[in-house]
């Protein structure tokens, strides 16, 4: 082995000072062998499988993390979309009690979130899926670890506007049922276009129906490391050099994640799925995506130039990641969750980062309108229209987009909510109040775009 001191100190600096970490190792578990005729028996079988497959997850991850001196922040489990596993339509009470069984199993495993209370309804909603979706608000209000996602569109199928409208109401109802906890239920609910089947990041993580029995998907982060690298460039460095610096940094981060992830998978005896290289910010100071954009030369994230800077960042991250690992998947890119990014939250609170600018940014980032607190007076129809806007960006650009909004009951622009932990805090930002009701209530499908005709 022959490393120079610089290489060793750089690695230490990244993990000790710049918040480099493996953000999550997420164990995907296929549940099709748990299907029975009764939702309660199915839930018990799922619990049994979760406990048998996931029992060593936390301990193994901690052991491997110790060996390399790198933190693995979250250990999680993702499940086959439960709407497919539960089968027939059940009552809300039945769904809630099944969800509680899974939530308790997650607690037993020592993990903070499980993903997969999900439905894929981009082409149509069956009676069973309709009942399942209806249960989401109660399920999220009565559990603390279970996360939900609903895919309402794909580039291949178009946008199911009936599902979009339905989700407008579901988001609103979820906020109302968790009004006493700052609408935290909504932080566990994501509406997607082109949902990935192997994304390790919550709340939108699930183990897709095309996946095998078990796979370990790894999410690596490191906005702090990229920020320091960009910040250390001279002011006259051109944008080609900025992109190159991001790319090289992303390469190193990805390689570290792949090494750690593969080792955890090997020790757990499951296959390694994909590596998701996403710059996922946390509320910690120095772990912000907005800081990177500002280090490129913007006075405040949200001003003109922000979309271009984010496009450069997102693309360079992907290029570095793709070179470092052959199995890059999930979302891979840069996240812009407002409440979870200290600087982004600050700019939104200052009014310099607006809702419309965030929407524009989602056209070039890896996810979408994420963790944005909006006024409680926002109607279900307006939320549906916001979802439709965001989803159409994903469908037309053949990419994943998603919406995770918190219409906090009773809150008005300028109010602040605190969600705690990695979810951070947020100031309520205004949205347009002109009605889009007639548009969203037309329902039906927005046909698949011409981009889908690739065969």
């Amino acid at each position, binding site marked *: *082995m022959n*490393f120079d*001191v610089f*290489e*060793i100190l750089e*690695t*230490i600096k990244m993990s000790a000072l710049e918040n480099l970490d493996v953000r999550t190792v997420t164990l995907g578990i296929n549940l099709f062998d748990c299907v029975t005729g009764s939702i309660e028996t199915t839930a018990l079988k799922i619990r049994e499988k979760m406990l048998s497959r996931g029992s060593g997850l936390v301990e193994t991850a901690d052991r491997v993390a110790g060996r390399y*001196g790198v933190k693995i922040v979250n250990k999680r489990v993702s499940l086959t979309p439960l709407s497919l596993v539960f089968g027939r339509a059940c009552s809300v009470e039945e769904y809630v009690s099944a969800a509680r069984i899974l939530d308790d199993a997650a607690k037993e495993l020592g993990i903070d979130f499980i993903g997969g209370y999900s439905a894929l309804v981009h082409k149509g909603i069956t009676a069973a899926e309709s009942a399942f979706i209806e249960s989401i608000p109660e399920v999220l209000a009565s559990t603390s670890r279970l996360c939900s996602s609903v895919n309402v569109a794909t580039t291949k199928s178009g946008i199911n506007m009936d599902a979009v409208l339905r989700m407008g109401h579901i988001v609103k109802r979820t906020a109302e049922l968790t009004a006493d906890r700052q609408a935290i239920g909504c932080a566990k609910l994501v509406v997607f276009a082109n949902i990935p089947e192997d994304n390790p990041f919550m709340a939108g993580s699930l183990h897709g129906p095309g996946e095998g029995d078990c796979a370990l998907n790894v999410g690596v982060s490191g906005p702090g490391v990229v920020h320091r690298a960009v910040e250390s460039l001279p002011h006259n460095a051109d944008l080609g050099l900025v992109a190159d610096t991001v790319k090289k940094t992303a390469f*190193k981060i990805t390689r570290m994640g792949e*090494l750690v992830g593969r080792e955890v998978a090997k020790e757990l005896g499951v296959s390694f799925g994909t590596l998701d290289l996403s710059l996922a910010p946390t509320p910690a100071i120095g772990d912000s995506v907005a800081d990177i954009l500002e280090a490129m030369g913007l006075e405040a994230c949200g001003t003109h130039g922000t979309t271009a800077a984010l496009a450069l960042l997102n693309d360079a991250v992907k290029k570095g990641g793709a070179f470092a690992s052959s199995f890059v998947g999930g979302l891979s890119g840069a996240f812009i969750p407002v409440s979870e990014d200290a600087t982004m939250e600050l700019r939104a609170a200052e009014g310099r980062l607006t809702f419309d600018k965030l929407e524009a940014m989602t056209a070039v980032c890896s996810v979408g309108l994420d963790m944005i607190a909006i006024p409680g007076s926002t109607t279900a129809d307006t939320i549906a229209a916001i979802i439709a806007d965001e989803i159409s960006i994903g469908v037309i650009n053949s990419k994943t987009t998603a919406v995770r909004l918190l219409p906090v009951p009773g809150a008005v622009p300028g109010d602040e909510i605190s969600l705690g932990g990695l979810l951070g805090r947020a100031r309520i930002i205004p949205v347009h109040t002109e009605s889009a009701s007639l548009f969203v209530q037309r329902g039906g499908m927005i046909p698949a775009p011409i981009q889908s005709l690739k065969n």
Partner: protein
Amino acid sequence: MDIKARIEKSVRESVSEELGSSIHPEKLETVIGRITERLATLITPDELVLLKIKQHRDLRKEMAVVSVIGEDSVGIVADVTRILAENRANIEGMNQAIVSGYFALILTIDISGMKVSIDELQKLMDQVADRKHLKIYIQHENIFTSMNRI
């Protein structure tokens, strides 16, 4: 098969593979003969055994890096190396510097024969680190390889 015959066999395989039909068969035999002679007299059988042992040891070596960073004080190297010796971690490389008033020591250690796990070694080092106001990181070599080598 004696050592000389084995050397000749190995030389014949390599030379034939590299040169094959591009060289006259008689010339080929001369070259193989001369290289075999040279090698057979160059290394004694004892040296060959030692070489074999070294190769074997190199193959099963597992390395880690211990980085000690912080305030300079008397006895840091002694404390750190004592723990390594007690736990049979062999020091293969050592690099020490004072960087802007801070003490930085980087040790490359062979952990293949170590009595404790990296985790346990880290705990022992943490005690020294606390006492002497230092930070000590122990990391398996693979992390540096994966991040810095293609």
